[in-house]
């Protein structure tokens, strides 16, 4: 029995067991990974996994189970258990499954890794880093190729197959100067093939070059309200935090979102246009179907500062009476601005180039505070020195409302396409 046949069989078994609505999803993944540790290639991993997720709805009660035993004999007890879990749940009319859509097969990327090419790319990367950036210590790095196949079917007739494959590279590094070491930094990217040298992808060359300069870090001068240029590596985390506390299921269902009644209203600076583009050719990774089982579409989230959509799941939409989002978020594309980064930098009187933010989870009202890591002090339009022991604090919503400029340049991470943004009004204390 093929995996697709097994998934169909599982769905039928749920319906025969009495599920009024049912969903079955099988995912099989195979990963090949090369690992560097302290600059040396130390480990090759091959991991194979598959899992089956069954969801059943009965009398408005929902239960689900996920297991990675997907042979036919494992199905009967799994179906029995998921029906018991559903029966134990509290009823909620908002639970539902995706509506019918025509069957479709989606495919993207390569099917098998080129192990020798992976090895060559990693070796070339370590040699180039050693030659061009002698102060850099590659604490760890891994290049992996993952191939994933998903079968998504439900009792409304949804029948999707997704095949995706690609390479992901991630590194953690510091810079050594005598006995002392700089802060760790990390970055990475996703790519559909290994046509390019690893060092030329994502923001690797920029970050390694900055870290390699070897200038001794210092605290920012005292405490002041200043400006921040948020780098593409740092921006993605801020975007996830902002959307998490404002337009996702949790705060909207709870009724505590600061954007609860702000659809089609100005919520950020008019400089900011943000889209979620999981099926755009601009995004190499992305996804074809939502976790609910709908074919994903690209969508603007904030257009010239105006909120264009909430990121609600089907459950969240049913619960709030608002519209379901056409995707699950992520895959961020921020529209570039009209100024080069160098010009933006010249306009900063006193502030930071924020490369990494290490902070506590932001409060539900958007307040944040944390340490500016791998960052640089800016004064009178020029980068002065790298920072240590410097904290920043502010409010995420106010931060995005204060954006004064967006750079022309963007970094293509494969999973997101992001510029540098210039925002104001952050408390900086060194």
């Amino acid at each position, binding site marked *: 029995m093929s995996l697709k046949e097994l998934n169909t069989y599982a769905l039928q078994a749920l319906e025969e067991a009495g599920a009024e609505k049912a969903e079955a999803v099988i995912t099989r993944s195979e990963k090949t990974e090369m690992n560097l540790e302290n600059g040396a290639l130390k480990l090759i991993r091959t991991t194979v996994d598959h*899992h089956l997720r069954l969801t059943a709805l009965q009398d408005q009660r929902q239960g689900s*189970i996920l297991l990675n035993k997907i042979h036919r004999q494992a199905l009967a007890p799994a179906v029995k258990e998921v029906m018991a879990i559903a029966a134990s749940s509290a009823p909620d009319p908002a639970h539902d499954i995706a509506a019918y859509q025509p069957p479709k097969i989606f495919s993207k990327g390569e099917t098998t890794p080129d192990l020798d090419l992976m090895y060559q790319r990693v070796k070339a990367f370590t040699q180039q880093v050693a030659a061009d950036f002698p102060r850099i210590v590659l604490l760890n790095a891994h290049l992996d190729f993952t191939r994933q196949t998903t079968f998504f079917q439900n009792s409304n007739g949804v029948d999707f197959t997704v095949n995706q494959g690609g390479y992901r590279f991630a590194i953690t590094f510091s810079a050594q100067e005598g006995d002392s070491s700089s802060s760790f930094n990390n970055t990475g990217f996703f790519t559909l093939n290994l046509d390019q040298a690893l060092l030329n992808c994502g923001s690797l060359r920029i970050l390694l070059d900055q870290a390699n300069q070897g200038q001794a870090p210092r605290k920012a001068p005292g405490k002041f309200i200043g400006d921040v240029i948020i780098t593409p590596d740092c921006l993605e985390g801020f975007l996830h935090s902002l959307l998490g506390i404002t337009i996702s299921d949790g705060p909207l269902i709870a009724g505590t979102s600061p954007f609860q009644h702000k659809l089609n209203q100005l919520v950020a600076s008019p400089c900011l246009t943000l889209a979620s583009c999981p099926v755009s050719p601009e995004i190499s990774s992305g996804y074809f179907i939502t976790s609910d089982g709908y074919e994903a579409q690209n969508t603007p989230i904030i257009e010239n500062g105006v909120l264009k959509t909430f990121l609600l799941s089907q459950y969240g939409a049913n619960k709030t009476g608002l519209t379901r989002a056409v995707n699950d978020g992520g895959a961020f594309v921020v529209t570039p601005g009209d100024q080069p980064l160098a010009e933006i930098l010249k306009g900063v009187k006193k502030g930071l180039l924020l490369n990494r933010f290490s902070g506590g989870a932001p409060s539900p009202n958007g307040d944040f*505070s944390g340490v500016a890591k791998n960052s640089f002090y800016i004064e009178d339009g020029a980068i002065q020195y790298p920072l240590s022991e410097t904290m920043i604090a502010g409010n995420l919503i106010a931060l995005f409302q204060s954006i004064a400029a967006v750079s022309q340049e963007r970094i293509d991470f494969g999973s997101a396409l992001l510029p540098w943004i210039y925002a104001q009004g952050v408390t900086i204390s060194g």
Partner: protein
Amino acid sequence: MNIDLSTYKGLFTDYTELRCQENNSLVIGFLKGNNTTNTRLTTSGVSARVYKDGAWGFASSPETTADGVKFVITTATHNAAFLAAKERQDAPPLPHGEVTTHHDSPPTSQQLNPEQFVAFLQEIDHYIATNYPGLASRTVTLNRTELKKNLLTSDGASAFSLLSRSLIQIGLTVEQDGAPVSLHEVFGGRGQFETLFSTPEALYPKIDQLYEHLMRKREGIYAAAGLKTCILAPEMTGILAHEAIGHTCEADLVLGGSAVGTKRGQPVASPLVSLVDFAHTAFGETCPVPIFVDDEGTTARDTVLIDQGILKGFLHNKESACHFQVPPTGNARAYRFSDEPLIRMRNTAILPGKDRLEEMIASLDDGYYLMRPSNGQADATSEFMFGVTLGYEVKDGKLGRAIKDTTISGLAFQVLQTVSEISQEFKWLSGGMCGKKQLIPVGLGGPALKCQVMIGGR
């Protein structure tokens, strides 16, 4: 999990670890009375890791069958051979640890059925809704986890280990001037749900306390940013021990340039400070995450990192122990069957002192009492940060207004030099998860500390 791993010893050609593992979890969630989640997750499989001439090969499969085991051993062996042939490293063989066997006993208590779990949480949710109708939102979430591992190594070590954890997380949100203010707390820890949570009523006094703190936080002020004298409650000290010191003492990070690399035998903290990564037992009791044998088959032993202010040692797996020419400490741990073991902490704690928390607060003229942490991060430089979700200002020895969410940071070994008082009161934080490529459960413990840290604010 019933597979006899010893059957496959004949397939080992180099140093090999063969591990069969099953992770079970149950998650039930209520958001404002809505049962948003009720799901059970089980993942199991087998993995092998092989060492050859300084190179490692790893492979895993979800199939815990003869074919699955053969696949992971042959693939891991092939991966190690591929890399060893390409890299040609001149590496010594791994140290042979003592041959050890360990077997944890299965749980004995009667387990609740799905309806009983849901009813238990519903009752808690109902209590909160009835007693505190002014809340804007509330969450009640159960997370029960169980890790079962069966290990065999080519050195002859064998172990069956079982780690259970049951947590109930309560989150309360209130609105103040149209903006949400939240506070949450995690209850429970190591062990079966049924032995940790007798009745919903047993949690009510703790929920009442949480609500009282929230009401004070609602009126809270921003902390004043800058260097402050603070008293860290035991919950905060535990995360300081883990994030600020423990990570910098992991031997792989030491080799990567951690700030402690050249400081063994030197003073790095106030003489009041001693810090230990406990394997399984501390102060005569079982730790939150007891590790008797690690995932390389090494018998786990307590590791003293700081003794009366002097840096004593690092946390090791077999390979790093070989590099530093010390015995392995039993810190090689993996989270899922498909994960390779990494150097990880187990139960990291600053040891209690002689002061009383009450008197420590009374002796502080101007500063903060910081009570509950959120997430934290560490760095090679020993610069740490962690979030603070509950704290109070202290003026003239008395607790004052609550503060809003904030973050504290500092260079760990500078902060530890400023420690002037350590409480007798000691507490484990038993719900911690550490992220370092993989997640893993850890125990974090400590007394209250009086020290100077940077606090984020306005």
